[in-house]
């Protein structure tokens, strides 16, 4: 096994891992750092369950290798509730009942977070566009879109 030190900023804090540089960010988050909030769905870039923010933009952690993460900033779902208080997006998903089995939700939450950071007052089309890469097999899309709208409202208050 070829390992290397990779340094990056994870949820606001500098971290250093000693891992193979071609390991995916998803593997390192879940298996090395034990941050299991980020889910492994298809491992193929189709489902969006593994979505994290890389320098503020939504990307698939399953299609990102550690060498690409070096020196960059990564935010996972664990990074949203920094002080234990859920983020406005997380609250909106819970309060709307947008969660059924929950497996896809961390990915949806991160894609939503990226959308609201770039565009604080998105239209419904903007929301559908931003979430088009995230699949929910409990077919909860209607509630999910409602949750995003609620998050927009709450964040605007």
């Amino acid at each position, binding site marked *: 096994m070829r390992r290397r030190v990779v340094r990056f900023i994870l949820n606001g804090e500098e971290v250093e891992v000693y891992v*193979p540089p*071609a390991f995916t960010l998803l593997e390192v988050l879940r298996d090395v750092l034990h941050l299991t909030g980020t889910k492994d769905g298809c491992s193929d870039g189709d489902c969006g369950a593994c979505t994290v923010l890389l320098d503020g933009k*939504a990307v698939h952690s399953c299609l990102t290798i550690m060498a690409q993460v070096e020196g960059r900033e990564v935010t996972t779902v664990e990074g949203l509730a920094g002080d234990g208080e859920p983020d406005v997006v997380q609250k909106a998903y819970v309060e709307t009942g947008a969660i059924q089995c929950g497996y896809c939700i961390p990915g949806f939450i991160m894609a939503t977070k990226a959308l609201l950071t770039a565009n604080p007052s998105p239209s419904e089309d903007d929301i559908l566009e931003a979430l088009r890469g995230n699949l929910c097999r409990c077919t909860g899309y209607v509630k999910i879109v409602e949750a995003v709208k609620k998050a927009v409202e709450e964040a605007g208050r």
Partner: protein
Amino acid sequence: MNRLHDIEVYSPKTLEEALEILRREGDRVKVIAGGTDLIIQMKDGIMPRKNLLNIYSIDELRYIRMGNDSIRIGALTSFTDIASSALIRNYARILADAANTIGSIQIMNKASIGGNLVNASPAADSIPPLYVLDAVLVLRSVEGVREVPIQSFYRGYKKLDIRSDELLTEVRVRRMAEDEDGIFLKHGLRLGDAISVVNAALLVKWDGDDRFKDVKIALGAVAPTVVRARSCEEALTGKELNDSTIWDAASKVVNDISPIDDVRGTAEYRREMSVNLLYIGLWEIINKRNQAGW
């Protein structure tokens, strides 16, 4: 699925360093840009396992600039940046539209135009627009620079005119003129994030009589490389544009393509969809011009 634990990754910070590594390692390394397809191919064992030259951190290859008579796009520029660039939306709209359909937001944020071109999938959405916009690819090595027109870059299925010491660093596209219209069309199995079953780019130049002075049509996912639909182009140039000439011209596309059956569709389905896409696309171009008051 393979874990990539034994793969060495070189991560140069500058283009110069990257070219030096390529000179030294040549075929022993595979270049990784965004990696959104390469990582899947490596995990699935489709691609021979090689060490990687990770160019993702070479920010000097991320730019969109107006050149003298072309738009210059750095090879690492993401599809998110291409889709939202005012320069590209104004002067090469077909490419912006294609960029927007490449995949999900997650894919668009990471995948790069250079990666899409060198990955050389026959279904790559950025290639048909670049065919009709006469793109030129800039290849750099320690030895120097080569400029290759996109149509001679592709020599066969995943066979490219690029040496093992060369890196694709820039894509140049010409600006669309006032008397030109174009459209990108994609038929995929899922709207938000799909590999094309058939895609196409159309670029027409109008003459003074509401006819096409020039037509360029390129299709993807229907041959080992992206192809121009020459018989279709010929059937439209200088002709009166009505439903029957357009349908006849669109139908001729079957002479220009050689699709295969695969997981996304049969050859027969692709032939039918190619005709339909061109028919729809030509009418969209014509209707748009009519609405614009011509």
